[in-house]
C-alpha cells in the first residue's frame, strides 16, 4: 500500500528513530512502513494519522 509517511515525517524534520519513538515502534518498522513493505494495523495507522494531524485516508492509499 502506498503512503505519505516519509514525506510527512521529513516535513516535520523527524528522523525515522524519532518517529518510531513517538509511535512506540522500532526504527525498522518505520522504515518498513515508509517503503511499503509493511502495512500497519488499523491501530497503528490511526496513531500515525494522529501524529500528523491527518486522516488515515490522507496518508494511506490502497488504490495503487
Amino acid at each position, binding site marked *: 500500500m502506498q503512503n505519505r509517511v516519509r514525506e510527512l515525517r521529513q516535513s516535520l524534520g523527524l528522523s525515522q528513530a524519532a518517529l518510531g519513538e513517538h509511535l*512506540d*515502534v*522500532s526504527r*525498522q*518498522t518505520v522504515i*518498513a512502513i515508509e517503503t511499503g513493505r509493511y502495512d*500497519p*494495523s488499523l*491501530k*497503528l495507522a490511526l496513531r500515525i494519522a494522529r501524529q500528523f494531524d491527518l486522516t488515515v485516508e490522507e496518508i494511506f492509499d490502497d488504490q495503487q
Partner: protein
Amino acid sequence: MTNSEQRRRGYRGVMAVCLVGGLAYLAVGVVTGQVWFGVFGLAIMLTYAGWLTWRRGRTEEETILAGEGVDERQQAINARATVAMGNLMLLAVLAGFFISLFLQWDSGVWVFGGLAAFGGVSYAAALAFYLRRS
C-alpha cells in the same frame, strides 16, 4: 501495557527460560550421575543468555530472540517464524516416524508417533481456542 513494559517483560521471560533450561540440564545431569553433562548444559544456556544480553538491540533478529521485539510488525514476523518452525518440526517428526517404521525401530515409532499425535491435538486445541476468542 506500553511497548517498553512489554520489552522488559519479554526480556525477563527469555532470561528465565534460559536459566530454568540450564538448571534443568544440571538437575538431569546430577540425578543421572552425568554431572559434566549437566554443567555443560547449564554453561551453554547461560552463555546464550549472556550473548543475547550483549547483542540485544543491535539487530532485529537478536532483539526478537531476546524477547524485546514487541512492536506489531516484529510480533507478526515472530509469529510467522514460529509457524515456519512448527511446520519444519512436524516434517522432521513425520520423517522420524516413517523412518522408524521402515527400520522397525519400535521405540522410535512410539516416540515420533506420540509427538506427531501431540502436535495434531495441540493444533486442534489451539484452533478451537483462537476461533472462540476472535
